[in-house]
């Protein structure tokens, strides 16, 4: 039995209000959620069905020029510059008048992510906590994604595919942990796509992955894929080799290296492939690998549902391929959310943090709020599930 009502809301309210602060990568997000303290939450396993109402969900992204990635130092500076403004905006939109009375808990990302950006947001979270006398909860970023995905899609016990700029993991729940079944052995899928976007010098707004997706959609010859290695290793996968290879292809194409017979016709010297073809083949190849390990995880745990979370999860082609696989497997179902919840945001941190808080697990001493770059998904004890 899980009782999510152990900690009563402040100020004799019959609902909880949580604010979430996220800043583990180049997105700075602040979200406020409201969640009723209904009787059915006092027993059973209902953490995926909390009737969450989103009062505000503000995000500000640090966008770098084409061909450039975001560096920790500059990203931290961006977060410091915007943090207070975004918090203020989120509070105004949520019509929070007095944070001391109206907010139950401040949730912030404790890790994993880039150290400097995480730290800059944690400083603001600690200050707010002391100014308002509101407790803090440090949240694991991956768990934030999972809990938000479950709440939005109402998927009770799905296999979770977590794909973003920094992480690629297949996760399934078992005995109070989100256990990692398979993951990348080197770079994350989002990192792979972002870096290829840098080679192509395409814009980083709204996101490099989105722009690759649009290019891939315009691919004219989808029947002939460019051959790339398919590197699934057991339950894990590797993507750095694929990236290095396709990077060389793109550079040869731009330089007009006619010696490359894959790219240029032997007789006429005309290019045989386009940038769109490269994007399409890269996506198909990587996503096929993801679908394979996800399917294997489903077979292991006997699941019928897949939940895709993380920034790359907003890719419609990935959702489509995963949907096809689920359909072929005994009427499975794929759950995905749109960019508001897939891409890093404050609301997901608030959601996971509030569950933690309602189980009585919050920061008792500020020394527990030190951020950490390495924080694995299975380190978190998931007390709010059976």
């Amino acid at each position, binding site marked *: 039995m899980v009782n999510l009502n152990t900690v009563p809301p402040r100020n004799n309210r019959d609902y909880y209000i949580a604010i979430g602060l996220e800043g583990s990568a180049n997105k700075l997000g602040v979200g406020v959620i409201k969640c009723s303290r209904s009787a059915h939450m006092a027993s059973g396993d209902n953490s995926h069905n909390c009737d969450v109402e989103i009062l505000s969900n503000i995000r500000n992204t640090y966008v770098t020029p084409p061909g450039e990635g975001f560096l920790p130092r500059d990203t931290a500076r961006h977060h410091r510059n915007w943090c*207070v403004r975004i918090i203020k905006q989120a509070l105004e939109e949520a019509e929070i008048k007095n944070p001391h009375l109206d907010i139950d808990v401040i949730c912030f990302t404790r890790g994993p992510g880039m150290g400097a950006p995480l730290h800059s947001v944690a400083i603001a979270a600690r*200050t707010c906590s002391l100014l308002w006398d509101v407790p803090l909860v440090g949240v694991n970023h991956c768990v934030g994604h999972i809990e938000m995905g479950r709440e939005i899609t109402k998927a009770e016990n799905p296999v979770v595919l977590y794909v973003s700029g920094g992480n690629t993991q297949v996760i399934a729940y078992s005995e109070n942990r989100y256990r990692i079944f398979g993951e990348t052995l080197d770079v994350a899928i989002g990192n792979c796509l972002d870096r290829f976007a840098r080679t192509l010098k395409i814009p980083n707004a709204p996101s490099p992955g989105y722009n690759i997706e649009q290019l891939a959609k315009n691919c004219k010859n989808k029947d002939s894929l460019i051959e790339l290695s398919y590197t699934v290793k057991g339950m894990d996968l590797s993507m750095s080799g694929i990236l290095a290879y396709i990077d060389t292809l793109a550079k040869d194409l731009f330089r007009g290296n006619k010696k490359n017979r894959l790219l240029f016709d032997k007789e006429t010297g005309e290019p045989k492939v386009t940038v769109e073809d490269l994007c399409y083949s890269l996506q198909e190849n990587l996503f096929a690998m993801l679908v394979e390990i996800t399917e294997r995880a489903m077979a292991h745990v006997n699941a019928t549902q897949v939940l895709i979370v993380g920034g790359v999860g907003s890719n419609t082609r990935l959702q489509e391929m995963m949907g096809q696989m689920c359909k072929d497997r005994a009427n499975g179902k794929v759950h995905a959310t749109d960019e508001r919840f897939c891409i890093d945001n404050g609301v997901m941190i608030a959601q996971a943090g509030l569950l933690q808080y309602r189980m009585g697990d919050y920061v008792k001493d500020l020394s527990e709020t*030190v951020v950490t770059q390495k924080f694995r998904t299975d380190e978190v004890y998931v007390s709010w599930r059976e």
Partner: protein
Amino acid sequence: MASSSLDHTLTLDIPFETEAQASIAMRVLQPDPILRPQDFEVTYSTRGASLVVSVASVDDRVLRVGVSNIIDSIKTIVETADELSLQQ
């Protein structure tokens, strides 16, 4: 090298509006560990409505980088206190 003396020192005295704010700043800054404790040391305290930051380091380069990071954090705290304090 390991036990070289931290003889490059600097003390910052940062005034806040109230004693409570200075104390909040101190408590916010204190938890974070120093990445290279053998090269850099910092202690936070308050004197009235002022936050006192005492820094000691092996050379002026490490000192400059460390102090610059602390000031960045303090800027966030000051801005948060200015903009998000509870209205009395």
